[in-house]
C-alpha cells in the first residue's frame, strides 16, 4: 500500500517530531508524522519539565534562546500554553569552590540574554530563605521556568494536524531507505510512506534508523527518576536545581501552580527496551527524599504520592544530534537530547523546519552534527 508522496516524512512523534511537523506546516510543506505508539510518550512525556537555559553547553544557548522566544508565544502559535511559567530558575551549589563555576558561566558572552545573577552567603539566604544551610551559592535566571511535559508533544501534534499535517499513531517503521530521489519508509503493517525529505526524531530508537543509512551513533538509554508530592499552597515559584559533580547529590524540584512539588534527579536506571518500560529504582526515591530535605528542609512534612520514569537517550558527549545527514541528501536528524531536550523542543522544531525548507539555518547547530560520531566510529573500527 503505497501512500501519496509528501514533502517531508518524520519518524518519531516526540516533542521534536511534533514541533517539526508543526513548523514545517507553517512553511507550507506537506508533512506526515509516523509514531509507533502514541505521540509524546517516552522522553517527551515523562521528563521533569524544565524550561531552563542556564547550565546548558554554551554553544547550545543560541538555539535555546530561539526556543525560549517560542515558548513565550505558545498560545498564539498552538493555542495552548502547556502550563509554561517563566517563574525563574536557580542553580545552587553546596561548596564555596563551585561558586566561581557559576560566576564564569554567568559572565560568558553566550549567556548574556539570560540575565544571570549569582548569589552567595547571607544575600542568598535572604532572597531564598527556604533553602537549606548547606547551600552556599546559586545562579538565578529570572526568565527560565517550567511547563507540563505530558501536554507538550500532543499539543504540538494537534496543532500540526489542524494546520494540515498527517499524524499516524500506532504505526511502526520496519525499514527506511532512499530509492533514487525518494525516501521509502515501510511500516510493519505493510504500508509504504514516501517523501522527498526524511527527518528522524525517534529518540532512543533513532540510532537504529540512522545506522540503516550508515551513520550509527553510540546512543545509550536511561530512565529518569521522578517523583511528586501531594499539593500544598503555591509558594515556590523558582525552579531549583543542584549543580554538583557527585551523582547522588543531583536533585531538582519545581512547584506547579496547583501545588504539587515535582522532584527529579539522582542515579538513572536502565530501561527495559524490549517492553519499552522504565522503572524508578526505589533507592532513588529514598535518596531523593534525603537530598530534598537537605536542599529544602521544610519539605519533611510532605509525602511522595507518585513516582515515574521513562526512556531517554544519551550520547557520549552529552550533546544531541541535530542537523543534516553526512551521507544522504535530504535526510535530517534530531535526537539524543541527553535528558535536556524539553526546553529545546519548539526551537528544534523551528530550526529543522527552516533547515529542511531552505537548506540552511540562521541558528548555529554545527556542534550537534552527526558526523562527529563517524570519526569516533572509524577510529574504533581501525583500533579493533
Amino acid at each position, binding site marked *: 500500500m503505497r501512500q501519496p508522496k509528501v514533502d517531508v516524512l518524520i519518524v518519531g512523534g516526540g516533542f521534536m517530531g511534533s514541533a517539526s511537523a508543526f513548523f514545517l506546516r507553517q512553511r507550507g510543506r506537506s508533512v506526515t508524522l509516523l509514531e509507533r505508539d502514541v505521540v509524546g510518550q517516552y522522553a517527551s512525556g515523562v521528563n521533569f519539565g524544565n524550561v531552563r537555559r542556564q547550565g546548558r553547553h554554551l554553544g547550545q544557548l543560541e538555539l535555546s534562546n530561539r526556543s525560549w522566544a517560542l515558548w513565550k508565544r505558545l498560545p498564539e502559535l498552538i493555542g495552548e500554553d502547556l502550563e509554561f511559567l517563566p517563574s525563574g530558575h536557580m542553580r545552587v551549589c553546596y561548596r564555596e569552590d563551585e561558586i566561581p563555576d557559576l560566576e564564569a558561566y554567568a559572565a560568558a558572552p553566550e549567556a548574556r540574554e539570560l540575565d544571570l545573577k549569582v548569589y552567595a552567603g547571607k544575600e542568598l539566604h535572604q532572597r531564598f530563605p527556604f533553602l537549606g544551610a548547606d547551600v552556599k551559592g546559586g545562579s538565578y535566571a529570572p526568565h527560565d521556568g517550567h511547563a507540563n511535559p505530558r501536554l507538550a508533544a500532543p499539543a504540538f501534534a494537534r496543532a500540526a494536524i489542524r494546520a494540515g499535517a498527517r499524524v499516524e499513531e500506532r504505526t511502526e517503521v520496519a525499514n527506511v531507505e532512499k530509492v533514487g530521489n525518494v525516501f521509502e519508509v515501510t511500516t510493519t503493517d505493510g504500508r509504504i510512506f514516501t517523501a522527498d525529505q526524511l527527518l528522524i526524531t525517534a529518540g532512543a530508537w533513532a540510532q537504529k534508523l540512522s545506522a540503516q543509512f550508515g551513520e550509527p551513533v553510540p546512543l545509550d538509554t536511561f530512565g529518569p527518576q521522578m517523583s511528586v508530592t501531594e499539593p500544598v499552597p503555591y509558594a515556590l515559584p523558582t525552579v531549583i536545581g543542584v549543580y554538583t559533580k557527585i551523582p547522588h547529590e543531583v536533585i531538582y524540584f519545581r512547584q506547579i501552580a496547583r501545588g504539587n512539588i515535582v522532584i527529579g534527579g539522582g542515579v538513572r536506571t536502565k530501561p527495559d527496551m524490549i517492553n519499552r518500560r522504565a522503572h524508578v529504582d526505589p533507592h532513588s*526515591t529514598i535518596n531523593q*527524599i534525603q537530598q530534598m530535605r537537605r536542599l529544602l528542609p521544610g519539605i519533611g512534612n510532605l*509525602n511522595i504520592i507518585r513516582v515515574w520514569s521513562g526512556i531517554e537517550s544519551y550520547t557520549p558527549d552529552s550533546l544531541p544530534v541535530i542537523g543534516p545527514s553526512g551521507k544522504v541528501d535530504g535526510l535530517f536528524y534530531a535526537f539524543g537530547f541527553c535528558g535536556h531536550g524539553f526546553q529545546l523542543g519548539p526551537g528544534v522544531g523551528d530550526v529543522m523546519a527552516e533547515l529542511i525548507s531552505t537548506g540552511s539555518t540562521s541558528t548555529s547547530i554545527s556542534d550537534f552534527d552527526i558526523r562527529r560520531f563517524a570519526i569516533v566510529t572509524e577510529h574504533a573500527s581501525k583500533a579493533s
Partner: protein
Amino acid sequence: MATSSRLTVSQSDSPRVVIVGAGPAGTRCAETLLAAGIKPILIDENRRDGGQIYRRQPEGFKRDYPALYGTEAAKARDLHESFDRLRGQIDYRPDTLAWNLTAGQLCCVNQGLHTVVDYDALMLCAGATDRLMPIKGWQLAGTYSLGGSQIALKSQSVSIGSRVVFMGSGPLLYLVASQYVKAGADVAAVLDTSPFSKRIGAMPNLLARPGLLFNGMKLLAQLYRAKVPVHLGVKPEEILGDEQEGVSAVRVQLANGNTLTVPCDALALGYHLRPETQLADLAGCGLRFDEVSGQWVLAVDEEGRTSVKGVYAAGDGAKIRGADAAEQAGRLAALALLEDLGKPVSRQLVDDVRKSLVVMDRFRVGLAEAFPWPAAQAAALPDDAIVCRCEMISAGELRGVVREKGACEVNRAKAFSRVGMGRCQGRYCSQAGAEVIAAESGVPVEKVGRQRGQAPVKPLSMYTDEVVS
C-alpha cells in the same frame, strides 16, 4: 502460569518467604508455611493483625467479640487465636508499609525507617478496598466509604455522623448499616442501587451458601425492626451541602420514579469491593478483566500462582470472595508454594481446599449478580460532578480530553486530565473514570485499559530514612 516449573531459591534449605497482609489470607498462609517448617516474614500495614473484616480493636479497648463481630464472632476469635499462637514463631512486622518492590526485594517503611526485605517467594494477601462510584457532591466533608465507616466503628467505636445514610450496593451496605444500628447510631436510610429483581435472579448462585444468605436476610430484618427505611433500585442524584458545613442531605430517584431527599450529616458509600493489586502490578504480574464483576483483577491460577514466578496471591486481593474464602485461599497459596519448592504436600488437602472454594466462587458470582456495579451511573454523571476527588477533576473535564484530545485509553486520559494522579493513586476514581471514558469514546470498558500501578503503593513520607544495615 508457572504451574509446572519449580521455584529455585538462593538458600534451598531456608527459602525466604514474605507475606504481605495479616488478614484471614495472610494468617492462614503463615500458619500453613510454619507447619511445613518455613518461618515467613509477615508484613502488615496495620498495627494489629486481623485485616479489615476481623480488624482487632486497639490495645486497651474492651468490647467483646459478639459486640465487635456479630455473626462472625466465632470466626474472628478463631483467626485471632491462631495468629496469637503464630506470633512468636514468625517474623511479624506490623505497622509496616510495603510501598514498592523490585525482583527479589520488597521495600518497606516502618515508623519512618526504610528497610529492604529480600525474598525468594512473595505471598500477596493485600485485601481489598471499597469500590466507589462518584455522585455529584461526593467531595463534601461527611462523605465516607463503607469500609471507612466500618473502621471508625470497629476500631474506635465512633460513628461517622449523628444521622447517617448508607448508599451503594453489596453485602457490606447491609452489614455496616446494621452494625451502626446495633451501636445505637441514627441510620437515616439505606439506599441500594440494585433492584429487588436482581436478587431473585441471583438466588440459584446465592444458595451455594445458604448460611450466608440467611445471615444477609437477618441483617435486613434487623434494619426493618429498627424502622430504618430501605429503598431498592434507587438512582443516586446528588449529595447536598456546602463547603463550610459539609453534607446536609442526599437526593435520589426511587424505583417508582419519585424523588427522595434524605437529610443527613454523613454518608457512607460503596459498591462492593475492588482488589488491592498495586504490589502485584509493580511486580509485573498479569491482570485480566473479570466479566462477572466488570473490573480488572489479578490473573492467578486456582491455587494462587500469579504470572510471575515466585509471586503468589490469595484473599480478596486475588479474588473477591470474602473472608472464609480468603482463609482457604491463604492455605492454598501456601501449599502451592510448598509444592513449587519441592516439599511434600498432601494432594488430598489441596483438593479439599480447592473444593471448598468452588462453592464460595459460585456465591461470589451470585453476589455480583445480586448487587451489580452500576456502570451506567458513571455515563450519566453530570459534567460538573467530580470524578477524581484528590485532584478535583470533573466528569466534564475528563470527557473533554476524550473528545478534544483523543484520549480513549485510561493512562492517556490520566496524563491529560490528571484523573487518578492524586494520593489515592486512582483507587477510588479510576474504575468510574474508565466507565466515563468508555461511554464518551464508545469503546467497551474492557478495551479502554486500566491505570498502570505506580509506586508508592501508599504515600511515602519525606521523613523516611534509610536503615544502614
